[in-house]
Structure formats: C-alpha cells, structure tokens
C-alpha cells in the first residue's frame, strides 16, 4: 500500500475543498453586496481574493509534486488531473466574485435603474451549482455532478433574459446606461460562475468514471 501517496491525495482534496469554500463564499458575499449595495462587503471580497490565489498556487504545487514524485495511474491520475483543472476553475470563480464586487461598488454610487430582473435568483442558482459541484467532488457523487450539468442551461437562459431586459432599458432610457452596463456585467459574471461549476462537475465525472462529458459529449 502506498500510504504516503494516498495521504497526499487526501491532503490535496482537503486543500481544494477549502479553496472551493473560499470561492463559493466570495460569490455569496458579492451577491449579498449587490442586494444591499454594501460597499464594505465588496471590500472584503477584494481583500480575500489573494487567499484564493495563494490556495491556487498551493494546489498546483501539491498536484505537480504528486505527479512528479508518485507517478500516479488510473483513478489517481484522473483525480490529480481533475484537481488541477478544478483548481483553475475555482480561481476563476474567485475572479468573477471580484468582478461582481467591483460592479457593485460602481452601482452603489448611482441610482437604481429599476429593472425588472431577478439577479438574486440567478445568483442563487449559480452558487448552488458551485456548492453541488464541490459536494460531488467531496463524495465522488456522479449523479450530483450530473445534476449540475443539467442546470447550466437555466442560468444561460436567465443571462439572455437579462441581456434583453438591459437592451430594452437602454433603448428607452437616458442617463442610466452605466448602471445598466454594471448589471449586465454582474449577470455575465454569474453566468460564468455557473460555467465554472459545470466544468468542475465534468471533472468530477471524469475522475470517478473516466468519462469525458465535456461539450455535451455523451453524458
């Protein structure tokens, strides 16, 4: 038995899950700030981004060490490759949270355009996808990962609806375009968060089943 190696795999998983928790929390905070226009919460998101970036470097280093020192095979090889990819996705999720927080800081300085759109619902869906993708990773749960993939289209549709609503609002109003653009960017970033959750779910399926389900290949 390769006890040290398997301990290394467990450590990698724990590190990645902790990073996932940070990325998920960053999006939650950014969305909370969007709803309350609370700039102080935005500042926390910006401040904590460096922790996610540091975790990304740690996960990469741990993964490369395991590849170089242990020459993993089969499910272990798939696991480490998945970790490297999930790591990149989680770092991007952190970036999306920062982007949202920056837009909220801008929004807070201007009046609300009063659009009839449901950013909180879109945010809730995107965050739940990240959470479920991470839970699927935690417990090697292919069914849960699969359910994440199936939700991506919902978020895409909501993003399109928001785009149309902003488009209409821009045609019908003057003077609030900056806020409308901010909202469009927030929606775009939430849509990207859902895309990253989808990527993570695909990587979980690859790790557990050895199946490549990217780009709507045989799921």
């Amino acid at each position, binding site marked *: *038995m*390769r006890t040290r*190696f398997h301990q290394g795999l467990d450590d990698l998983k724990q590190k990645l899950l902790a990073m996932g928790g940070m990325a998920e929390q960053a999006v939650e905070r950014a969305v909370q700030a969007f709803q309350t226009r609370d700039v102080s919460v935005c500042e926390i998101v910006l401040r904590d981004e460096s922790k996610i970036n540091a975790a990304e470097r740690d996960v990469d280093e741990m993964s490369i060490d395991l590849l170089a020192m242990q*020459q*993993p*095979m*089969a*499910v272990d090889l*798939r696991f480490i490759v998945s970790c490297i990819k999930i790591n990149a996705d989680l770092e991007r999720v952190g970036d999306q949270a920062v982007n949202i927080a920056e837009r909220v800081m801008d929004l807070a300085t201007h009046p609300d355009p009063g659009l009839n759109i449901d950013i909180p619902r879109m945010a809730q869906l995107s965050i739940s996808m990240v959470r479920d993708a991470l839970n699927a990773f935690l417990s090697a749960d292919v069914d849960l990962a699969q359910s994440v993939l199936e939700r991506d289209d919902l978020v895409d549709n909501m993003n399109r609806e928001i785009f149309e609503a902003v488009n209409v609002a821009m045609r019908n109003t003057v003077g609030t375009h900056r806020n409308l653009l901010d909202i469009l960017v927030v929606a775009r970033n939430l849509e990207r968060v859902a895309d990253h959750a989808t990527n993570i779910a695909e990587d979980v399926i690859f790790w557990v089943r*050895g199946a490549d389900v990217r780009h709507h290949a045989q799921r």
Partner: protein
Amino acid sequence: MEGAGIHVKDLNAWFGPKQALFNIAMEIPAKKATAIIGPSGCGKSTFVRCLNRMHETLPDTRVEGKVSIGELDVYGKGVSPVWIRRRVGMVFQRPNPFPTMSIYDNVAAGLKLNGFRNRRELDVVVERSLRHAALWDEVKDDLKKKSGASLSGGQQQRLCVARGIAVKPEVLLLDEPASALDPISTAKIEDLIFELKKEQYTIVIVTHNMQQAARVAEFTGFFLLGKMIEFDKTEKVFTNPSDKRTEDYVTGRFG
C-alpha cells in the same frame, strides 16, 4: 522478416504439481509492443517463456494449450523448439553475453550455430544488428578486441538484443530487460524498443515498471495469480482500467 502476431488460447503451465498459468487467452498484435505487468509471482515471466518453449527447459515443468506465432503452431507435433527460438528471440533481466567471446562473436553466435559461414555476410549482419541495438557507435572499434563481458551493464544488455535480432526473429521477448540498468541505459533500451517496432518486430516486454510499460507498449496485459485479468490498449489500462484488480494494482492499492 515480418513481425507475426501471437495467438494464445487455453494456455496452462505447471512447475511440478503447482500450476503457474491458468487458461490464458490473448491475441498479441503483430509489429507492436505488448507489455505484461503484474506483481511478483503472477506468472508473467512464465507466460513469455511459454511463447518460445523456454518454460519446458526447466525440470519438471509442463505446458498445455495453444500458442501460434503467425501460422506456426508453437506446440505442434514435430515442431522443433530450436526452430521456434530462431523465430522468437529473447532478452533476459540480467545481461548474459557469452563471457569469453568477443563482441563480434557474441552477435554472430546464433548465425554460426545455424550454419552461417560467409565471413562478409556475417560482417554485414553483425554491423546491422549492432546498429539496430544502438550499440554500433560505441563498440565498432573494439569488435574483435574486447569480450562481451567487458562492456557496461547497459551495453551488455544492448549486445544481447543485437545477438537476439541477428538471427532475424519475428518476435522479440524482453523479460525485464531494463530492471538491472541505470536510467540512461534504460532510456536507451526503451528507445531501442521503438526502433525495433519500426523494423516490424513484434515485441513482448515483461516489466515491473509500469511507467516503462506505459512509455513503450501499445498494449498491456495485467496478470495476477497466474491469470490474465485484463488486456487492453495501454492508455486504457493506465488511465481507466476495466477491472477493479487492475486499478488496485496500477494505483498501488494492491495488497
């Protein structure tokens, strides 16, 4: 010379009362490298020794079943083991050059045994074999001056490959050919396997080193307790094996 595929069916082998192989069935493709992996005592060396009837050279051993190399029935009635071994070369874990013979005579030995006497043609075959074994440049000035035993371990192993391919076999069996070698010599042996594949040899390599199997072989068979558990494309065996026992072995969860 054209590499031939190897067809194995219902192959069983014994050491005295102890059965070492159980109903092995395998289609080893022609002109490719096939790796045989598995833990110590799993029967992988016994298996390759059955392919050229080396197993029966040990006392109190027995083989049943069918092995064909191309059209040749290896265990057919009247088939000479010597003739089989001309068609199936073998290189062992420990390099075993003939210690008192020169480098040249080591390579030429098999041909001479087969009655090959033409000096000029022998020169051509020796040079070609040493070139194919990636040893020519290192020994060309000492061919008849130095003995095979005077070479380094890695060179000796390549000399054994040269000796093995001098008789133009169709199949080359390599039984842990690099396990006693340093990494540079190992890399040379692995490069050599690639070159030999280009030369249309069918190669079967027994190895403990899974990374080596992954590097050199297109197909891999996993043996356990005398049985073949899985046989598939190498990338499948090492990235997504079908059998849990294979997965446990390649990931080190075995035992």
